[in-house]
């Protein structure tokens, strides 16, 4: 395992620790993505985010990597600050590496500005997901009555 992979594993493990202990073990250890979909989602999202943080910081790529993890935490009852907390967990891990090694290992130095930008995008994503919840709730009600609405629409007044 190289140092970049180690950072990723540590980041995943620390993020998993925001769940109760038994769940954290399942999240970080079980490899089958269908037995452990949350763990698989965390791994995929965090690895893509780390790649962007140490690379291009492409907004579209970050958005698609942030989407699943924030989407999940929104329905898991995480408050906005708790939902973006996983991003701040990266800071102490990088500090342990030291600035020079950080650059050497990841290619580009991941500084606070990049992490801050990611956190801001995560907050936006959180708000979008909450708005979507309200929308899909309304759509569900609409579907439940659709036949009656159609019958009424066809019936002469």
């Amino acid at each position, binding site marked *: *395992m190289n*140092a970049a992979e*180690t*950072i990723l*594993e*540590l980041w995943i*493990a*620390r993020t998993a*620790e*925001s*769940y*109760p*202990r*038994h*769940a*954290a073990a*399942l*999240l970080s250890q*079980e490899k*089958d*993505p*269908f*037995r*452990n*979909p*949350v763990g*698989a*989602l965390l791994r995929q999202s965090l690895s893509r985010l780390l790649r962007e943080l140490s690379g291009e910081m492409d907004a579209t790529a970050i958005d698609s990597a942030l989407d699943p993890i924030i*989407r*999940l935490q*929104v*329905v*898991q*009852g995480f408050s906005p600050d708790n939902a973006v907390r996983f991003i701040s967990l990266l800071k102490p891990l990088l500090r*342990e*590496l030291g600035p020079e090694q950080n650059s050497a290992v990841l290619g580009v130095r991941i500084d606070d500005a990049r992490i801050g930008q990611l956190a801001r995008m995560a907050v936006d994503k959180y708000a979008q997901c909450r708005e*979507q*919840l309200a929308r*899909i*709730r309304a*759509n*569900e*009600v609409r*579907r*439940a*009555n*659709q*036949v*009656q609405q*159609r*019958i009424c629409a*066809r019936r002469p007044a």
Partner: protein
Amino acid sequence: MPQQLLSIEPHNPEGDWRDAKVEFRKGTMCYAAAPKNLTYLGLPNPRPWQPFDADWKLPPNWKQTILDGMKERLQKYRSFRLFMEICVRCGACADKCHFYIGSGDPKNMPVLRAELMRSVYRRYFTLTGRVLGSLAGARELTEDVIKEWFYYFYQCTECRRCSVFCPYGIDTAEITMMGRELLDLIGCNINWVMEPAANCFRTGNHLGVQPHAFQDSLQFAGDEASEITGLPIDVPINRKGAEVLFVMPSADYFGTPHYYTLLGYLMLFHEIGLDYTLSTFASEGGNFGLFSSHELTKRLNAKIYEEAKRLRVKWILGGECGHMWRVFHQYMGTMNGPADFLEPPVSPITGTRFENARSTRAVHICEFTADLIYHGKLRLNPSRNDHWNVTYHDSCNPSRAMGLLEEPRHILKSVCRKFYEMPENTIREQTFCCGSGAGLGTDENLEMRLRGGFPRANAVKYVREKHGVNLLACICAIDKATLPTLMEYWVPGVEVAGVHELLGNALVMTGEKERITDLRGEDLRGDDLRGEDLRDKNLRGEPLTNEDAAHE
């Protein structure tokens, strides 16, 4: 750095599981039953209250009522007594619950959810528990425990996935059922169960649709099926002397996408000339009594046989529904049978005797249709479903409660050309629940449902990315009501349909006019290419143009 990885210490606080305090938050719980519904059903302690209230207004003797209720059920049900005693905490069930997988809450591990009740059982019904107390895993029954039971027993969809993995065959769903029965005794139940149950008792169906409105809806469906096919499709209601009584969930004639399944049934029955009738009295196959108590299950189910007797039919055919089939297949025969006034079902078209339904006299529509297809009695044009890349969600109750695994697949593979299975450990007996069954499919519980449904959505996402799946077929009314929401949140671009909707699309009917739309009214001709183009765009996540939007 690798050394650091080995030295990770868990930072998360792990409380004592015996601490019963729970937090009720909107979005992750169901509202309490309205008093009018409990009054209508004659159930105890009707009063206005909500789970997030500090005072639940329990009756003064609530504790004795619960303990007496437990004692009575321990004596009456051997399975309950066994399930309280025999668990060895092996953990085989622990990571099998969709709510645990989706939430990480340890009390959603089936073993621990059951332990919430076992701990009380030990305290009051075992010598070691009475003497050693918490050392023997026993807990006092307190108001907090009642609140915890309510929270977690209404966070189990009774899907029985955990029971598939238990080496002792403990059916944790039955423990949830016992928990809900006991809570009923002191008036702690949810409105999404009690209102449909009260409606059903009053009008024959969960939605409270009265006979004339039922007739209206069915007539409307018959007219639409006639418009699509150019054939006069009648819908017989309350017709005495018909061979078959057809019973379906009420959502089929009320909500979408259920309604398209209803069109499929009507077209099929017309094509084969089935001598059948619907009933205004038995206008609901579903039975929300199952999510409350065995007494209420029996009361609501009684109408099925009563109506079959009144209409003098020979046997019963049941539509696409989930828990309806758990009741029909596992309880109806003993609860309200024997149905000795009916005949063992025989298909009038193929002559097949449905030996599996000899006791209940009730045949699942998928068994019936698969048999027709197997014997070559239907002409099918699967290309009419070419706009769908289909996968199949095994609805929990038909798959695990009655073993209905191959019949829906046989139909789907006959009526669609593009069918793809989800991964093996997410289908058939191991299927993941939609997260909304057993009365939990209400909008105030949306966030919890989306947590619980995540494992299912994750498997759908896999086949969407791998095969371009854009349709999730299923045979349960609750699935059809709630999976579209689940897909909208987790896997946008995937729609939901019943198996008989797809059959209706593909069915080539004698004398029909050229089909220009599918059952949803979407164009099947030239515009279809445009439709596929749009769907492909959607799949690739490309933004739609104004022209695209106008087409949609």
